[in-house]
Every structure is written in C-alpha cells, then in structure tokens.
C-alpha cells in the first residue's frame, strides 16, 4: 500500500483545465464599476496583460501551459499525493483519506502555481513591475518568488495587522527582492482615505487590493496581479486537481468526497474543478465537493449571491459572487488568507447551483484538527489549510459511524511553518471563536451596490 503517490516530471500537466467551457449556463459577466455595463478586454488592459484577459474569458476547454512556466513549476511539481494511513488509523475510520500536498513549493503553498504563470505573461507583455496585495503573506511571498524568476519588480501591499505579526513572510519577500508596504499606506489615494477615516485600522485584504489596483492603474509600466478569485487564477490552479486525478487513478481510486478551504477560492478550485467537470459532464454525479470557510467570514454559507466589488474602494469590476459586502472587515482570525468578503464567481455559481456545497468551521475546531493531523501525518499545516483538514476528519468520522468506506481527497494547501504563533495561541487557550451575526447584519442593511441582477 502506497503512502506517497508520485508522478514523473513528464506527467506535469501540459494544459490547464478551463471549467468555463463545461458550465451549463454562462457565467454572469463582470460589470464596469462606472457604467454598470459588462467589462471589455480594453477596460482591463490598463492593469492586466492581454493573455490573462483572454484566459479570464476563454471558452476553450484546455489551455496550453507555456514551456517556460512548466520549467519553473517543475522545481516542485508534480506535487505528491499522500494516503493518510496514520490519520485513518488514529480515527479508526473505514474511509480512505488522501491529500494533495502543496506545501512543497518554494513559498510553501499552492500560490506559486498562478504566480509563476502571471509573472510570465506580464514579462512577455513587456511589463516591468507588478503590484499586488497580500493578507497573511502567502500570496505576496509567492509573487515575490515568481517575479524574481522572470526579472520583474514587485510591490506588495500587505495587510497591516499581518505586516506586524508575520515578520518572516515579510522577510521572504525581501529575500526574493520585492518591496513590501504595510496597508493602508499613504502611497495611494485609497490608503490615505482609509487612514484619514481611521488611523488605527488593522487593514484588510479589500483595502490592500484597492491600493495595489490604484498603483497599477496610475503607473504605465506596472500591472496588477491578484492571487485568487479571478477565473484565470482558478485556471492556473487546476494543475492540482489534474495531477491528483491521475495519481488517484494510479491506485485505482476516484474520490467520493473532495475538500478544500476557501479564501477567494483558488486552491479549492484547483483541486475541485477537474472533478466538478466530470460531475457537470454527467459522470461521477455522486461526488461530494465541499468548500470550507471560517465561521468568522462565511462568504459561501451566509453571504448574498449578487454583484459586488472585489475591493473596499470600489475600483474593481463588479463580480457576481457570494459576498458579505465589500466593506466587511472580517475579524482577525489566524487563517488570514481566508479573510475575504467575496469568492471566485465560478465557485460561487457552482455552489449556488448545487454542484458543490459549502460549510464553515470555528477557529478552535480547525486547530484541534490540525494538531491531530500533525501528530499522525507529521505535517504542520497552515491555519487556512486546517479548515480542510477539519472537514476531512469529520467526513472520515461520519464513515466510522455508518461503516461506509468512502474515498476522501482534500487539498493540503500549505505548511504552517510561519504560523507557529497561531498554534501557540491555540495552546494558550487564546483563540476566539468568531461568528457572523447574519440576521443582525441583514437588518443593518448590507451596503452592497444596487446593480440590476
């Protein structure tokens, strides 16, 4: 019985899977924030290179991965798939648990899968600098690495509270030559406006996005890069699921349950889209595909499915997605990468239509699961990832009750080596269980822009 299911380098996917081609009905288009009309490629060209804009809207089912990108992905890909024998034994479950381990990348998460592709296309388009935001620093460090590889400069707006509390993520960005600025900053109008209103704000992903977009829009040599949410980002992450599918096939398995945590939705999309594609095409209809989010920021389980901005200042196109409102500042949970008010429009649509489901977990529950995982499988996972671990364990425990021998696959999106203070807080009994007071918030009238839907 295998513990580690490995693919040869030649099996690194040559093409990404574009689930847009398999959606039964088309995605609602992004709308221009000024006119309310669907955005055109020209609208996006000041901040994105044309090739990424094309991918964002492409009807083509399989999209070639450039060789230069594959060369870099080869540093750590194909990523291993593990069978969690020791976890299964601990849980005494008849279920078989597999996890795809994305913590092997240089930055320690799935984020470089798209960072490398984005940096490459921008380099090809003659762009000299990329501006982006980062929450806990995972995405920032991934893009810092990728821009260095392709010789671009990189400016990263890092959410202020994390900037102060995740010093090593910041150090990684510096090693890879990126500039890292705490957000909100006075470098942008958006940041200045927030600071004038509230000097002591902890910042948020939504604010940092506003700053990075503004930076890109106001500098001709600079483009913007987003680490999640958008279609092309989800597309680049499908290497995860494509590899996993092949690895599962090697051991003659197909998952009954596929699980991933959701911040903006990219690592979940990465593992899930190839399997969701099967489901949409009518095979493996019974596969359960589960998105896991924190109770502190329950976008898919408690949000509204409507058009909203991607950022606080309202600079981005309006996206049709589940949202808690673009001005919602989620509580400071340790899974900083899951503190986002919205979610990928494709993931949102698939949840809305029932192809996928969503659930939420409390902070203390996920750390308990992460501890069990670390003590059996060895890997100390990121707080974000621990949400997926929690639900994988819960599903396996369900099987123990029912006696079902389900095959469970989850995406182990990153390691937690720079998150040890979060584990310390857990052991010190200092983690709060946050909730989203949905009823009261609805009554307080969410400030979602009024756009015909």
């Amino acid at each position: 019985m295998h513990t580690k299911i490995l693919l040869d380098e030649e099996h690194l996917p040559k093409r990404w899977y574009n689930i847009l081609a398999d959606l039964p009905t088309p995605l609602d288009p992004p709308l221009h924030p000024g006119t309310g009309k669907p955005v055109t490629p020209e609208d996006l060209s000041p901040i994105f290179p044309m090739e990424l804009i094309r991918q964002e809207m492409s009807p083509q089912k399989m999209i070639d991965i450039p060789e230069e990108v594959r060369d870099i992905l080869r540093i750590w890909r194909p990523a291993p798939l593990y069978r969690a024998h020791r976890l299964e034994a601990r849980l005494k479950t008849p279920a078989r648990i597999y996890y795809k381990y994305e913590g092997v990348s240089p930055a320690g998460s799935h984020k470089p899968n798209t960072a490398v592709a984005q940096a490459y296309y921008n380099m090809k388009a003659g762009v000299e600098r990329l501006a982006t935001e980062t929450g806990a620093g995972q995405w920032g460090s991934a893009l810092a690495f990728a821009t260095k590889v392709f010789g671009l400069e990189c400016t990263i707006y890092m959410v202020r509270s994390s900037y102060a509390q995740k010093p090593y993520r910041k150090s990684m960005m510096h090693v890879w030559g990126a500039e890292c600025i705490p957000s909100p900053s006075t470098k942008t109008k958006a940041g200045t406006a927030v600071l004038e209103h509230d000097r002591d704000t902890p910042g948020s992903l939504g604010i940092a996005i506003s700053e990075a977009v503004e930076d890109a829009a106001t500098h001709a040599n600079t483009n913007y890069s987003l680490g999640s949410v958008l279609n092309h980002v989800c597309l680049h992450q499908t290497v995860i699921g494509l590899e996993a599918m092949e690895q599962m096939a090697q051991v003659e398995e197909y998952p009954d349950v596929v699980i991933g945590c959701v911040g903006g939705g990219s690592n979940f999309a990465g593992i899930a889209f190839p399997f969701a594609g099967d489901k949409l095409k009518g095979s493996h209809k019974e596969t359960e595909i589960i998105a896991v989010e924190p109770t502190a920021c329950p976008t898919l389980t408690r949000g509204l499915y409507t058009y909203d901005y991607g950022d606080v200042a309202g600079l981005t196109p309006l996206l049709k997605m589940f949202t808690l409102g673009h001005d919602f500042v989620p509580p400071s949970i340790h899974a900083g990468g899951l503190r986002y008010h919205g979610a990928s429009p494709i993931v949102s649509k698939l949840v809305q239509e029932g192809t996928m489901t969503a659930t939420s977990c409390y902070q203390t529950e996920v750390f308990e699961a992460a501890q069990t995982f670390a003590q059996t499988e060895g890997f100390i996972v990121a707080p974000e990832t621990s949400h997926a671990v929690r639900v994988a364990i819960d599903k396996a425990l369900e099987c123990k009750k029912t006696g079902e021998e389900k095959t469970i696959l989850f995406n182990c999106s990153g390691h937690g080596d720079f998150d040890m203070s979060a584990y310390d807080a857990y052991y010190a009994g200092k983690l709060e269980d946050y909730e989203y007071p949905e009823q009261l918030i609805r009554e307080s009238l969410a400030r979602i822009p009024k756009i015909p839907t």
Partner: protein
Amino acid sequence: MSSPPQSFPRITVGFLVNPIAGMGGAVGLKGTDGLVEQARIRGAVAHAPGRAKEAMVLLKDAPFRFLTCSGPMGEDILRDAGISGFDVVYSSPGAETSSADTREACRVFRSIGVDLVLFCGGDGTARDVFDTTGTGIPLLGIPAGVKMYSAVFSLTPEAAAEILLQQGIGPLSLPLRDAEVVDVDEEAYRLGELRTRLYGIARSPYLPGLVQGTKVVFEDRDDDRARAGIARFLAEVMEGTPEILYILGPGTTTGAIAHEFGLEKTLLGFDAMIKGRIVECDLNESSMLALLDQYAHVRLVVSVIGAQGAVLGRGTQQVSPQVLRRIGVSQVIVVATPHKLTETPMLFLDTGDPGLDAGFGEFLQIITGYRTAQRKRLKRSTGSCQ
C-alpha cells in the same frame, strides 16, 4: 496634613490600603467595619497589606510620586517596599481604620490633585474610592482577596504593577477603559448566591498586550474603539428595524449605542428606545411589562457586567423571568468588547429561572465589534459563587 505641593514633575498617584479589607467576610461576618476585633478573635488575618506590598515592590523604580495615608493605610507598605518618594497627606484619627477613612483620604487626594488612585482592598473599598473620585480620576485596584467582582481590580497584585509600568516619563499616557464597580450582596454571597448590582463605572488603566498575548488581533487592542464599533453596528440594526422597541441595559457599551443617536441613556438602568428616540427611562419590571403590552416586537440589549461574567444576573432585577419570557430568549442581544470577554473567561446566566437559563442553549453569541460576534460557552451557574 502637609500643604499641597506646587507641581510634581512626575505622575502623582494617590495610594491607599484598606488594611482590614476582607477580614470580616473571611470569618463569617457581614462586612468588616467596626467588627475588626471580633474578626480577629475569630481568627481573621489581614491580607491587604501583604498583597499591596507585592505590587509596590515592583513599582520601586517607576516614574511616580505617591501621596498616601499614614501607617497601615499606605505609609508602612511603601516603606516596606523600598519606596521613598512619597508624602503622607492623610492620617486616620482612630485606632482602627474605616470606610470613612478611605473616603476622606480620597477627598484629600482629589483636592491636592492626583493623576490616578491606586488602592488595595475589596469591592467595598472600590465603592468608597469611586464615590469620591467618580470618573474624573482613573482607579486601579490591587485585589486584597481571592475574588473581587469589580472590574477595576487587576487579576493579581503583580498585574497591577505591570499595568502601571506601561507609563513612561511625561503626562499620564496609560490606556484607559471603562470598568464596572459592583455592589455584592455579601449576606446572599455567604449563603452561596451571587447577587451583584452595577454601582458605577470608573475609568481604569489596563494592559492591552497582556490580554491577547501573542495574538494576531489588532483591532481588539483598544477598548473604546471596539465599543464604538459595537455601537455603530447596533445603531445600524436599530435603524433597519424601526418596528422594534429596544430596551438597552446598564453600562457604557449600551450607552454608546444611544450616543450614536445623540442621546444620553441612564447609565445604571434600562431605557427603552424606538426609531432613534428614547421612549422611557430607567424602567422597572412593571414598566417593562407595560411596554411589552404596548409593543409587539421588543428586543433586549445587555452587556456583560463586572469581572464575574454575569450576562443576566439576579442583580438585574428589572428583567424578571416574566419579562424575559415575554421578550423571548431569541430577542436578547448580548454585547461586550473583546477585552471585556478575555477578562471574563466564564459567562453565566442567572435569571432566577433555570428553565429560562437553559433556553439560551450551550453557547451564547456576543456582539464584539462592527458586524462581528464571538461564540462563548455558557456556564450553567445558578447560585454558586465559584
């Protein structure tokens, strides 16, 4: 009494100890005033001077100038702790000190002008000090006993010193928060029942860092900021539900909600609001019942009171089980700042009706900020003091 010094270069702290704090209660007497001899005969020992010294030795090199009282009410402790920069500004006339001495000493502190009053005693001492200082002078209590219910007390004597050591040279810069002073019914307490009443709300220094340890939390650090967020959120909820009558309970967090509408509510009582107006102040049980006859939709907004974590304790007698039953458990909104919650690790309901208490379930949702809530496990307390 020495004449008031002209100006002090350092922060001036009025320091006093109630040397007999807690002695009566420890041996089954109701209070200690006037009963010290009897308490001693029953075997009571004075703990307050020792506890005070534990804090003061840590403040030996702190940038404070102390004003204090003679003998065991301060002077002896400061000297034992190795502190020399102090003036004795009050001397107790009698052999045994009493509540009157605490009040008088605070009056002297106030007239000379102190930046802060640091005292060691119990809840009774806190009330005596607060009666004189009000909210004008910040207070900090060194707990003389095991369990003090007013939120002006630090957890331990060492913690009091740690809080004060945040102060650097220059004007008073300690972070301040609202802290409840409570009145505990000592007789009921000795019979195993905790009945507290909110007596007043003082300003008290605190240690933001200590509270959250190594955490990522940033917005929690400032208590006033968190309170403003809660108030803004609840005000938006109230604006969005003009058909609902809101009964706001005691405290400054609920007070901040009324402030959002430019209104001043009864600090220690229950006021009713609808459509941004106060319809009735300082409600009692019968006026609440009358309002419940009049309005179809009523919600109760209460905060966590005191350091003991009562959400609806027997001290809030206006909200009788009958009132609560008619409002409905699901219509109770509990608010508290994150700092407050970390100070009160155990929350409990003690409405006087176990059936009602059970209706709240195992967990309580508490609004802790703008559109933010925390889930806390409820302790099923009924009567027990522990």
